[in-house]
């Protein structure tokens, strides 16, 4: 077994159906996605194409209906027993799997009753069992890394959107994740605040973090992504290096999408 060739994410034939019977919604219809270690994958697509759902399936926030997701070679959410039967994992095991995958949300979701520092130090203490002092020291370091060392004692309501999102990135990094998921991290920001968040993400990509980013920022995709995936109607329509996907799209649906965003 050669660990060097194990991709960070390997999703195979992933389906997601919301609801039952007549009103059932087939959001993902057989998605394959491979994300090599240390690479940045940008997922593009019109709203309702299933890209956010796919991202949430990569850390078990949504339970997939069919298919499989491996993160660093480990099956997510399930295990096979000796006879090959599939078992759902205990919630504690699933929580442990999630703790190695960082996620950044469109609407930040910072804990409103905690300061920036407390937000970042919370999970290392509660999940990893780190001492409070060690967690706070590390949190201060991370906040400095995202350029917020002068905002550690501010509550989220006292921060701008861009600052909140940078705290959210620091909060995810505090768990030393091997994979970072970004769900439209700049979509809820005022235009002049987008740059500061993208700069932090670019910095993170340069440091070798494996990242999957759902975004509408084509410029970011062009500059930072190693791989661009275009989704529509629950399937991957086209994927490849940014130069090929963004500048020489072969699919008419992708051409139409790019014409609208660019």
């Amino acid at each position, binding site marked *: 077994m050669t660990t060097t060739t194990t991709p960070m994410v390997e999703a195979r034939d992933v389906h997601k159906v919301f609801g039952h019977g007549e009103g059932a919604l087939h959001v993902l219809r057989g998605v394959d996605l491979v994300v090599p270690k240390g690479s940045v994958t940008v997922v593009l697509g019109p709203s309702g194409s299933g890209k956010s759902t796919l991202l949430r399936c990569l850390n078990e926030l949504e339970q997939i209906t069919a298919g499989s997701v491996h993160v660093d070679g480990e099956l997510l959410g399930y295990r096979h027993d000796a006879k090959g039967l599939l078992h759902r994992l205990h919630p504690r095991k699933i929580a442990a799997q999630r703790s190695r995958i960082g996620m950044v949300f469109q609407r930040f979701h910072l*804990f409103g009753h905690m300061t920036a520092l407390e937000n970042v130090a919370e999970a290392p203490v509660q*999940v990893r069992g780190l001492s409070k002092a060690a967690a706070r020291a590390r949190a201060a370091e991370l906040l400095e890394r995202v350029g917020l060392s002068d905002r550690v004692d501010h509550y989220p309501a006292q921060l701008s959107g861009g600052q909140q999102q940078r705290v959210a990135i620091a909060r995810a990094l505090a768990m030393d994740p091997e994979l970072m998921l970004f769900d439209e991290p700049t979509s809820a920001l005022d235009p*002049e605040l987008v740059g500061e968040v993208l700069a932090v993400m670019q910095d993170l990509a340069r440091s070798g973090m494996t990242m999957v980013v759902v975004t509408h920022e084509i410029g970011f995709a062009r500059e930072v992504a190693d791989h661009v995936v275009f989704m529509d109607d629950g399937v991957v329509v086209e994927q490849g290096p940014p130069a090929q996907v963004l500048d020489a799209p072969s699919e008419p649906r992708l051409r139409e999408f790019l014409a609208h965003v660019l």
Partner: protein
Amino acid sequence: MALTTAPGAAVGGPPTDLPEPLNARPVPRPGRWLSAAVMLVLAAMVVHALVTNPNFRWDTVWLYLRDVNVVRGVGWTLVLTFGSMAIAVVLAVLLAIMRRSDNPVMRSVSWAYIWFFRGTPIYTQLVFWGLISVLYPRLSLGVPFGPEFFVFDTRDVITAFWAALVGLALNEAAYLAEIVRAGLGSVDPGQAQAARALGMTEPRILRRIVLPQAMRVIVPPTGNETISMLKTTSLVVAVPFTLEITYATSAIGTRTFQPIPLLIVAALWYLLITSVLMVGQYYVERYYGRGFDGGATGGRRGGPGGRLSRQAAIRGAGTTKDDPFAEVTP
């Protein structure tokens, strides 16, 4: 590698070149003066009627306000109020969590409890708890439907005080459970989601993330319930428990043939305790309101105050232009 933001644009820094404010005559409002005058006269009449009427016997009121039996009654009233509220809060949180459980048995039991204890009068419940030793003369510890290990006489275990305390608590828990449920429901589901993504388990998410933020919504009506409970304790005479303030004062009133002054004594004590409770509630609300526009009134999206402080925060952040007329884009 660290990004640096521009130093914070001064919020409320030294103003420069302030213009002369407009100098205009205000709109005349004679109605305002008139209505205020009418109100003041009415208020003066009420006070005068209270103070000068000899039937109130203010000297007797003052005498019994400090009576040993009355003060002891105040003590018992406080014990009943805080004791029953403490038990009720714990029960209510359990009931509210059961109400949100995936387990249908838990959900149904919680629903049935709330249905029963809200649906029957507290007075009836207190009479029932007082009669429990008649209904069940013996209590035992043992295997359900099986052998018994310890047997007690019910009257030794459930005295009048405990019957009163438990009766009040069980009833109150049903109301508080609905308040807690509303509080838990008021927290943005994104909060739990973010905690889940960090690898926190559900019980920890509830304790560390959801409950502390739900408190902002839970505390004001719970303060209201506490003040209401203070007065409800006067019903424990139904058990019968006879040491709390209302019974203590009315007993003196009957004995001395002066019921009115002693009713006033009890009312003054209730007013005093309520006033103290209101002060306490203010500080508890302020504590749980931290991080939410720094106000006891909270409301992240509410009110012009909220918007102004959000605007101040955004300008204080120093990432936007220092324009005093800039509006928050929600």
